[in-house]
């Protein structure tokens, strides 16, 4: 044999077990859909849930390891595993609520379930990526599935519009991200995060200029995905138009995944550049919190209001990034978990209030809801109060961590602005409570207990939101260890 053999890269199959399981589940769902129809479609959801469960178990089993695979392009550390678990929870709850929600829509295609799972695969890839190309790969897998999901309710004009808008602007933003990646590659000569970190720590003045330009473009790309002002304009339209369960996944999953990569690259790889990027993120955080909260005040549509709310929450998370350090990083992780539970819960309530042909998404429709369905009223109150940062719920503790981190790092001004913003936000969150408990009228409500999947989603979200408020220390410790795993 005269051929020189090419050595394949080392692949740690154990390391990529979670993402393999998830991908296999997604493909299985896709194929199984070909032979199912009608009411059997719930079964697809069940396949997805079992797959997510298996993924989560694999992730937990790997907790005490730190493995790399594909020549260091994928790193499975606690940080990545924390997010893997977070995405399993987010996708699992989304699937659960969807199994009730699809009944009240015209979405009759089982692709829905496989697309959710494919999107989740992309998220997991993003969170475990140690190479910019892999980050990009994950981002695209996640986003393309999300574009399709946004438009999956084909008979709805708003859904079509949402998909097209999300796709066009998303592609535009991806261009920025890719250009930023190209610049970093140009400087470092490699796309691996470790290589870039090395270059950054010993950068010459010229290299610094290119690094900064690359960072600026990546901030645009990630800023779009997390819906930070001024890259947020798509969010209200898309959140409102997309099917509610998809909106929920976009609001929590896509945002968390973007933050996972954003924080890994900026707070770890480019940590030495933090004096540069933190000044920009400071401004973005202030803009994002303020525009999000103030604009939410006048919204009449609950999904639109929650869209602005999710923009504002991206602002709080940016505060955590600016604060930096162990406390700031762990606070982001904890906050994302709390945010995931309460936001998914709020969207479940939106779904619970809707019925076939009658989405009931205006705030007026919530009038008296607290009396007609005490459980829904209580659940929504808890989610709203938690989102507003009122104790003793998870959202309060999350904000407390974020602002403590900012204070500890000396960002007093930013903390003042943040606290003021969270106080403005109380106005519109409590506005929902006012509708539910202090006005009459509104729409007829199907009791959530008659829709078991939705009911289960709500129970999990309520329990999680309360538990994170009362017993946050264990999970914060988990978040801290995860963040420290970045090294």
């Amino acid at each position: 044999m005269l051929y020189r053999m090419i050595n394949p890269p080392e692949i740690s199959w154990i390391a990529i077990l979670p993402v393999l399981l998830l991908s296999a589940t997604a493909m299985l769902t896709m194929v199984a859909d070909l032979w199912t129809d009608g009411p059997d479609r719930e079964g697809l959801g069940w396949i997805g849930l079992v797959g997510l469960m298996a993924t989560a178990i694999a992730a937990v089993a790997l907790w005490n390891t730190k493995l790399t695979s594909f020549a260091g392009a994928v790193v499975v550390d606690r940080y990545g595993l924390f997010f893997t678990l977070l995405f399993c929870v987010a996708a699992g709850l989304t699937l659960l609520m969807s199994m009730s929600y699809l009944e009240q829509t015209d979405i009759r295609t089982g692709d829905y379930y496989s697309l959710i799972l494919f999107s989740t695969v992309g998220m997991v890839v993003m969170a475990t990526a140690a190479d910019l190309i892999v980050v990009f790969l994950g981002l695209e897998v996640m986003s393309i599935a999300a574009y399709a999901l946004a438009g999956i309710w084909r008979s709805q004009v708003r859904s079509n519009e949402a998909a097209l808008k999300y796709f066009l602007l998303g592609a535009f933003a991806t261009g920025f991200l890719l250009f930023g990646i190209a610049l970093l590659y140009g400087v470092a000569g490699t796309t691996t995060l470790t290589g870039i970190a090395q270059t950054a720590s010993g950068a010459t003045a010229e290299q610094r200029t290119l690094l900064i330009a690359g960072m600026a473009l990546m901030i645009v790309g990630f800023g779009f995905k997390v819906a930070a002002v001024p890259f947020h304009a798509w969010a209200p339209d898309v959140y409102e138009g997309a099917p509610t369960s998809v909106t929920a996944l976009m609001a929590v999953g896509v945002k968390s995944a973007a933050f996972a990569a954003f924080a890994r690259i900026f707070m770890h790889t480019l940590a030495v550049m933090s004096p540069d990027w933190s000044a920009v993120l400071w401004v973005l955080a202030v803009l994002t919190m303020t525009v999000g909260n103030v604009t939410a005040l006048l919204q009449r549509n609950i999904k639109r209001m929650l869209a602005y709310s999710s923009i504002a929450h991206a602002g709080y998370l940016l505060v955590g990034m600016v604060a930096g350090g162990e406390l700031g990083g762990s606070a982001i992780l904890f906050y994302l978990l709390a945010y995931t539970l309460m936001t998914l819960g709020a969207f479940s309530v939106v779904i619970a209030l809707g019925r076939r042909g009658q989405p009931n998404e205006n705030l007026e429709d919530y009038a008296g809801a607290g009396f007609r369905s005490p459980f829904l009223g209580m659940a929504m109150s808890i989610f709203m109060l938690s989102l507003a940062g009122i104790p003793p719920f998870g959202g309060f503790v999350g904000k407390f961590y974020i602002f403590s981190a900012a204070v500890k790092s000396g960002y007093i001004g930013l903390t003042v602005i943040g606290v003021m913003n969270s106080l403005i936000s109380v106005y519109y969150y409590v506005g929902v409570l006012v509708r539910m408990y202090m006005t009459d009228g509104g729409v007829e409500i199907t009791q959530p207990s008659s829709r078991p999947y939705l009911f289960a989603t709500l129970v999990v979200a309520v329990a999680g939101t309360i538990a994170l408020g009362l017993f946050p220390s264990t999970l914060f410790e988990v978040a801290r260890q995860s963040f420290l795993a970045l090294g």
Partner: protein
Amino acid sequence: MHEAITHTAVAVSYLWLIPALPALGVLVNLSLGALLGKGAVGFIAPGTVAGGFGVALYCLVQILQLPPGSALEQTLWPWISAGNLQVDIAFRVDALSAVMICVVTGVGFLIHIYSVGYMHDDPSYARYFIYLNLFTCAMLILVLADNLPLLFVGWEGVGLCSYLLIGFWFDKEANASAGKKAFVVNRVGDAGFLLGTFLLFWSLGVGTHSLSFQDIAAHAKSIPLDTVTLITLLLFVGATGKSAQLPLYVWLPDAMAGPTPVSALIHAATMVTAGVYMIARLNFLFVLAPATLTVVATIGALTALFAASIGLMQNDIKKVLAYSTVSQLGYMFLGVGVGAFSAGVFHLMTHAFFKGLLFLGSGSVIHGMHGEQDMRRMGGLRTYMPTTYRTFLIGTLAIAGVPGLAGFFSKDLILAHAFSSSPVLWLVGLCAAGMTAFYMFRLVFMTFWGECRADEHTKHHIHESPATMTVPLVLLAVLSIVGGYVGLPEMWAWGNRFDAFLAPVFAAAQGGEHHMEMGLEYALMAASVGVAVGGIALAYVLYVARPELPGQIADQAAGAYDLISNKYYVDELYDAVLVQPALKLSNLLWRVVDVGIVDGIVNGSARVVGASSSFWRRWQTGNVEHYAVSMLFGAVLILVFFAWHSS
């Protein structure tokens, strides 16, 4: 002597019961209220509070038996831990907390009992008691909390319940908006509270902190003066919101839209005193910032005078009491502001008795008059409602500062301390005391004396309230009399036992304690009795002897009369300066940032098809481009910013 005080803490395991019992009431009534019916709901709700009262009394007895300065402690579980922050869910009962939990559960219990009668015919009976129990639970967390973040849990909880209860009868538009106003105004205060907490955490320095009161006390001295002044000022902003002081008092008068027992419990006896409690709790921090204390005392004195002057002209019986509450809270702040923390807390306690009594009495009147609240359509009620009248009179004498009743001792104590701090503050307080005597007796004369001015139909149905309502009145009347005798002036009989009991808590604050000359003290006392009697006499002349006079005065001093009866136009001012601009900004951002795509699709789908379709179509395609351009613009800005920042 103060160095000798031991600060021993006894770990106990029953403190959690105090807030947990009302919480249990919430859970039971929430899940089973519809099944159980009114009887059971009306038994469970007061029963749980009575249980809490029992435990509270037990705690008080324990504290009295332990050496001075002891406290009972219970740490339930670690709560927020992050880096060098280790906050626990922990309760602590020292002398101050013991007084507070007894007042909250005791007065709370009486008001629950009263509510059973008052709310009997209300369709939302269970909902009412759920809110009321939830409030009690939150208030108890507030006063039991061992650290600032946990205190904030109670702080927000009582605010929320207060808000829910103000808007309880939401069929009237005004009530819901009053609730909203209360909440929004309180947010301003809460911002101060939270920022103060964060700043405190930041300035405590290295080492692990639990933000517990001992921890703060141990490290407070190392904080620079400027910082501690800022921290305490921010915390005081929180107190002005919750305790309705200038300039954030505006929500409290509107809060009277809620059911009257709620006004008695939340907006007179307990929640509104949270600000005073918080300052008393953090006394060691506030004494480090003399400037803040001056602000507190000044705001307190001014509020006392300002609110009392508005009270002179109100015709709604509850509004008079509301402004009176604002004014009396001003006294408490005056007290803590001049460093007389135990006097402030003493007035807090006696005020809980007599103002609770007055509100419940007014509730009894309103109940008897079938919802009438305007005093101009009352009169002569003493013959119809003798028990209500007698107890109400006792409450009025107590608040007016007539010697022998609770209000006299506590108010006099505050005024005496104010005098030794600044005679100007004392004078302001004295004027407010005269006004208080006047407007309270004006209320009594207009309501209970003279001819009944109600229409025949109402008059026919006026009746004394049932026993569930009158028994709490009688008990509170008794407390309004005897409640003051725990804190006699130093030169009388057993002296000020109350002060001695609380002294260890305020040990840090009592460095400069001084005893006044007995002659001066008697002179001050004579002055306050004098203005009280003067106020009462004036009210008698104007509203009993020569009832035509008030109208003439109003005509002659029309300008001042307008100003005061319109509450100095403060609400209008806030609306014009704060509320409208905020809404405009929101509207502007909405229009600019969120251009009307939805309008185009949802509301304007007809228009899209119609004649203006070309316009809308262009508008729509323009939008995605518009978004893209805004992103591009943002990207350029970031690059420019980097270029500028890194050079």
